[in-house]
């Protein structure tokens, strides 16, 4: 079943919190993963892989570098989920 954009944001925030301890509230659409949330590349890869499992979506490695903001990730997941 497809997840709404709001559901994806909430789920992604949960994954970010789980990996980094950043509060879920801080994970907002306009935030940059690296500049605002201070998430390093290793954490980012863990979050990406966990997001694949959670949302039933494949996020190719070459796509990860384009996921600058939370909105980029939420939109990619929403548009590409099964």
């Amino acid at each position: 079943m497809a997840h709404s954009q709001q559901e994806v944001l909430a789920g992604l925030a949960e994954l970010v919190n789980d990996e980094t301890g950043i509060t879920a509230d801080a994970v907002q659409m306009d935030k940059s993963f690296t500049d605002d949330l201070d998430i390093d590349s290793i954490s980012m890869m863990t979050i990406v892989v966990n997001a694949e499992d959670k949302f039933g979506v494949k996020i190719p490695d070459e796509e990860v570098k384009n996921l600058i903001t939370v909105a980029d990730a939420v939109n990619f997941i929403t548009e590409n989920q099964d």
Partner: protein
Amino acid sequence: MKRVVVTGIGATTPLAGSANASWQALVAGKSGISTLEQDWVAQYEIPVTFAGQAKISALDILTPQEAKRLDPSSQFALISAREAWADAGEPEVEPERLAVDFATGIGGVWTLLDAFDTLKERGPRRVLPMTVPMLMPNGPAAAIGMALGARAGVHTAVSACASGNEAIANAFHRIQRGEADVVVAGGAEAAIHPLPISAFAAMHALSKRNDSPEQASRPYDTDRDGFVMGEGAGALVLETLDSATARGAKIYCEIVGGSVTSDSYHITAPDPEGAGAARAMLQALEQAGASIEDVEHVNAHATSTPVGDIAEYTAIKRVFGSHTDNLLVAATKASTGHLLGGAGAIEAVFTIMALKEQLVPPTINLDNQDPNIPLNVPRTSMSLSRPDAVAISNSFGFGGHNAVLAFRAV
């Protein structure tokens, strides 16, 4: 050369979650050995069903995010180092003058083997990106260096069960040579995993006393049948006497010797003549400027293996001759099990506490002392008589490593 003192101690052991509580439990004659309740014991029909598990889980201390990025060995290391650092009063030291010497015998074995399971079951993409930094043997030292901001070098000695002592010896010499003013030194191990247990059991190194785990680690006893695996970490803060005095720090004792030799005899068996171990003890005393008569207490390596305990006795006798009878010997692995790369570190903590409290801890499970090992091993704690007593702590490791530390009460 600069004089070096101990100003902080930390430990998380099978006896307790801190250095002081571990010491108290040791003096009270407690055992930290218990039956393993993990599912994998039955699943793989592991022949040895007990070990010295850390009394306090690292996951109860660290945040989930810290724990997630650290192998259990690094988790224990960080916990013990933070305790030691706080105990030392968080010395204000230039980062460029602060170093770390922290050992492990095996490294991130949980991380490595979990990752292989993940690879086999779920494929390469699901292998954690943090796997490499978590499994590397310098992981514990690096975690401490990051946490404390150490920039004078972060080092890892790897010499099996002598690793902890070798790391502390290296730290001692590093400060003596003037390369750092303060060093956090010690060792950690977290290898209570089915593979290392099976591997040690396969070489008949482990006790198989499954029906009475608390009695299984029995150094010097005629019925000893092998060592008991333990896990945890010990940490010291070492610094120059000048630095400690200048900041009015509490000083536990002085570290006066740290010697490393090698047997080149057999990959696992100790030299039955104890020549290499004896040389390590003698060199440590030489560095200390101490005579053999100055030594009042020995924290022995004494793992509870039939061959190892005798070989160490032979080495002690070689060094101390007739003074051997005057030594108050403690075999603290009877209470903690054998922490491998962490063993030297927690035994250093116990040796330091013995000098500070002027009290030799008891050795439990010594019901019938092996007549071939006529050492003076107190069954109940016993006072030291000299306020300037020297104590040594021995560690030996597979590979023929011998590492001996010497401390002097102040």
